[in-house]
């Protein structure tokens, strides 16, 4: 636990990337695999189910410190982080209790073992923990994994009284940093100012392994155990997990025009799809669909999984999941109805059919072709999709007629004829209920044509254009210069700030989460929540405004006087039951503070409705 606490302090004490990487490197070098596995697990933001409810945590600590619940609540509102709030409250509580004997750390940890065993009878504690205590508690304190195994993992399965006892006992034996980290692990909101990239860089520095290899490996399904950690950092590539995806290549944005592009001949142009980026893997007779958030999402898209059976073994596709109707993508709001589902009801499948728009091929015949130039990968992709459609139809025909019919319904997609006019439509042709589509090329021979195509993006339901260098390899992460995204300019609207609540993390204690509304008659109806886009000094100014102009409070939310107007940028509209207007802006963010505009002159809801048909 001490090494973990030291790592946290080192990361927290600096804003410099190089120092954070150095701290991570030192940690991973020095720490036994069993502990390092857990830390890597947490730092990558992986987490299990929260073992106790946060409301219980608050209640227990309120009872323990003798503070009323409302005061714990207000403290949380000011601090913005539950683990930190509770740690700070316990700090004050300690100082009010009779001074503890100043026994050393190991004595306190022995006390933990004792208490874990005696006070929480119902916990089946690892016996070896007791007998080996003097040897396992070295100058680094409790090995993190032992603490997790004996005091964190069992929490979920206990009755409430025992949960409370176990948690408070553990907290009692930890120092301030230890408590904070422990509560962070329990509340599951584990963000310590290090991005996943930074963690990988630190691990790469400690192990000498290339970053791409680690990126690849940590995306696999591994458990926080010594054995799995050893496997993650092992020098030789062992037998590969067939589900393992490749790191995604990410595009860099071009702001106003396709400026970095001088000669179009060297570039491949596609539409920028507005869906969910995903990697479709067909290996060892199995299909796995990965999201960019590194989640396996296969069960949510059975039609894609079904179609992937027609892919030859050893195939990996990069592409986009899209809700699709006829020849066009449906708004992102429709696709959202399919998100986060473990099982998809038939009705939802029929209402929101989904396709996989393939735009890159990373593996074929079990061969990693990411180092081949894009032109080559594209050629292979085109012929693959063309032949797979036929195989898919044969597969369907081979099935029982009733099933085939149902499948046909399931994949009631007419294909994207219009999008496929570049050479492939003849092969793919009809009946194209096949939900694996090829992202078509956008024909543009010069900048004028390119700009014209870009202007069509919205009408076609896309977000803009993608420009991919024809000779580029498929790198990992944001490999600058290989892929560019040229998005269409966002919509904008002037909205009134009507409510605010305190932010979290760095923004804790300041009112930084805003609710915005538009006029309908004499009423302001909410349509967006936005968090970012203001400068620090502007945030402070809005914070002061909120405090001085609060009309009423609902928990942490303060309704404020309708006075401040902000220009919001957004990508689209969707129906919403959360907002009073019945509409929600998609990806809203603050462009600027319209100090020149009184609230009465903010935009009206009608304007918004006219701007975008909400389907």
């Amino acid at each position, binding site marked *: 636990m001490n090494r973990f606490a030291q790592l946290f302090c080192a990361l927290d004490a600096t804003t410099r990337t190089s120092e954070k990487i150095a701290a991570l490197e030192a940690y991973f070098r020095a720490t036994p695999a069993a502990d390092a596995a857990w830390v890597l697990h947490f730092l990558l933001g992986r987490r299990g189910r929260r073992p106790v409810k946060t409301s219980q945590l608050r209640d227990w600590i309120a009872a323990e410190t003798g503070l*009323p619940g409302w005061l714990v609540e207000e403290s949380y509102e000011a601090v913005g982080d539950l683990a*930190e*709030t509770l740690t700070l409250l316990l*700090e*004050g509580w300690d100082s009010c209790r009779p001074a503890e004997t100043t026994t050393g750390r190991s004595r306190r940890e022995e006390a933990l073992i004792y208490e874990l065993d005696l006070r929480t009878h119902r916990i089946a504690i690892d016996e070896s923990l007791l007998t080996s205590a003097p040897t396992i508690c070295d100058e680094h304190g409790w090995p993190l994994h032992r603490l997790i195994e004996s005091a964190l993992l069992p929490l979920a399965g206990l009755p409430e009284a025992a949960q409370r006892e176990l948690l408070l006992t553990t907290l009692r034996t930890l120092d301030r940093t230890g408590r904070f980290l422990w509560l962070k692990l329990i509340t599951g909101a584990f963000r310590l100012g290090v991005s996943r990239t930074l963690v990988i860089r630190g691990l790469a520095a400690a192990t000498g392994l290339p970053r791409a290899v680690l990126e690849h490996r940590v995306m696999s399904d591994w458990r926080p155990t010594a054995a799995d950690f050893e496997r993650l950092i092992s020098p030789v590539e062992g037998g590969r997990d067939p589900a393992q995806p490749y790191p995604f290549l990410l595009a860099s944005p071009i702001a106003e025009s396709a400026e970095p592009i001088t000669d179009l001949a060297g570039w491949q142009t596609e539409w920028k799809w507005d869906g969910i980026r995903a990697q479709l893997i067909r290996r060892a007779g199995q299909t796995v669909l990965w999201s960019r958030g590194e989640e396996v999402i296969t069960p949510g898209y059975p039609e894609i999984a079904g179609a992937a059976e027609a892919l030859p073994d050893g195939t990996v596709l990069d592409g986009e999941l899209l809700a699709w109707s006829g020849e066009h993508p449906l708004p992102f709001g429709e696709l959202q109805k399919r998100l986060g589902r473990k099982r998809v009801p038939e009705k939802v499948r029929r209402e929101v059919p989904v396709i996989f728009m393939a735009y890159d091929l990373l593996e074929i015949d079990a061969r990693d072709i990411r180092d081949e130039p894009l032109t080559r990968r594209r050629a292979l992709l085109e012929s693959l999709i063309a032949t797979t459609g036929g195989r898919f139809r044969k597969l369907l025909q081979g099935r029982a007629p009733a099933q085939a019919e149902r499948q046909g319904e399931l994949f009631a997609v007419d294909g994207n004829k219009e999008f496929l006019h570049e050479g492939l439509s003849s092969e793919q042709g009809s009946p194209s209920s096949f939900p694996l589509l090829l992202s078509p090329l956008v024909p543009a021979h010069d900048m004028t044509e390119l700009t014209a195509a870009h202007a069509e993006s919205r009408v076609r339901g896309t977000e803009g254009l993608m420009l991919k260098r024809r000779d580029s390899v498929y790198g990992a992460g944001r490999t600058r210069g290989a892929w560019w995204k040229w998005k269409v300019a966002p919509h904008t609207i002037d909205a009134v700030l009507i409510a605010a609540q305190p932010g979290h*993390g760095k923004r804790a204690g*300041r009112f930084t989460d805003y609710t915005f509304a538009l006029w309908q008659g004499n009423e302001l109806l909410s349509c967006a929540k936005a968090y970012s886009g203001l400068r*620090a000094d502007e945030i402070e100014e809005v914070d002061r405004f909120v405090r001085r102009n609060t009309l009423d409070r609902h928990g942490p939310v303060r309704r404020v006087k309708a006075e401040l107007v902000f220009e919001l940028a957004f990508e689209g509209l969707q129906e919403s039951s959360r907002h009073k207007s019945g509409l929600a802006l998609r990806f809203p963010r603050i462009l600027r503070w319209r100090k020149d505009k009184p609230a009465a002159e903010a935009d009206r809801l009608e304007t918004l409705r006219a701007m975008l048909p909400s389907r």
Partner: protein
Amino acid sequence: MPLLAVTAHGLHCAAGDFFIDPWRGVDRALITHAHADHARPGSRHYLSATPGVGVLRERLGQAASIEGIPYGERQMINGVTVSFHPAGHVLGAAQIRVEHRGEVWVAGGDYKTQPDPTCAAFEPVRCDTFVTESTFGLPVYHWPEPAEVLRELHDWWRGNHSAGRTSVVFAYSLGKAQRILAQLDAATGPIFIHDAIHKLLPAYAAEGVKFPPSEVIDPDRIRSAKDKALILAPPAAREAAWLNRIGEVSDAFASGWMAVRGSRRWQSADRGFVLSDHADWRGLNEAIRATGASRVLVTHGYTATLVRWLREQGLDAAELATNFRTETGEE
């Protein structure tokens, strides 16, 4: 009629016709301490605890009419007895006791209960009504021992030297900066201070406060100190040009707000030292209890929170709306 009440000009004593820390110009102003939100220019006559006269004059100018009164000494103003008592906040800071017809009120101003070598320690004063601040009126605010904080600060200073960085500490120019300066060990390295801090030192020296040797910020001299230097400057100096001319730095804030990680990260400083000139939650509660007051009026800070808490503790508590600092401002 209450002995003290808020008017458009500030906290007013009608019986004695004087104001405590008025925010507009008045005839007679009794000043708890010299911070800008409590000691505003424009009044005809000022009364301050004697140790605070020097710093107050530095703030209000040579022309201001300022009278000093020793801590504990009583003075009659229009039949009202007033006296000043140490508040432990900064040099010369006072709680002002007001007595009229057997009723005693104490305006606490800003106060802290922790030790500070640059000012007299807080003294509880018995009263019927106590006017208290509530800057850190939440139980999450619990100050570590100042000696421990100073030790951490020295460790950080030495660590910066080994890492090839000059140390810069941002602290309020009146009070906090001197409190830190007085406890710095000059053997660690040369100390440079911002002019706003430096110009207040004579007023401190006149009251017998001892400081280690220091000099006013000079980028060339700081560079030649080869990362051994520590610089003390007010937070506003964070954008100053000289900061870019002294090589690599590690910066820190010294403030009670640093107790919360989010505030520290908001400043995106390398370090935050939890050192406050205000009372923490426990300090507030102990100070209030020690006055024996049956009625508590709560001003600037987590006002509503502290009022509700005190009421639940059985005290008659209420908010007193004043124009002192905002909730999340600098100390």
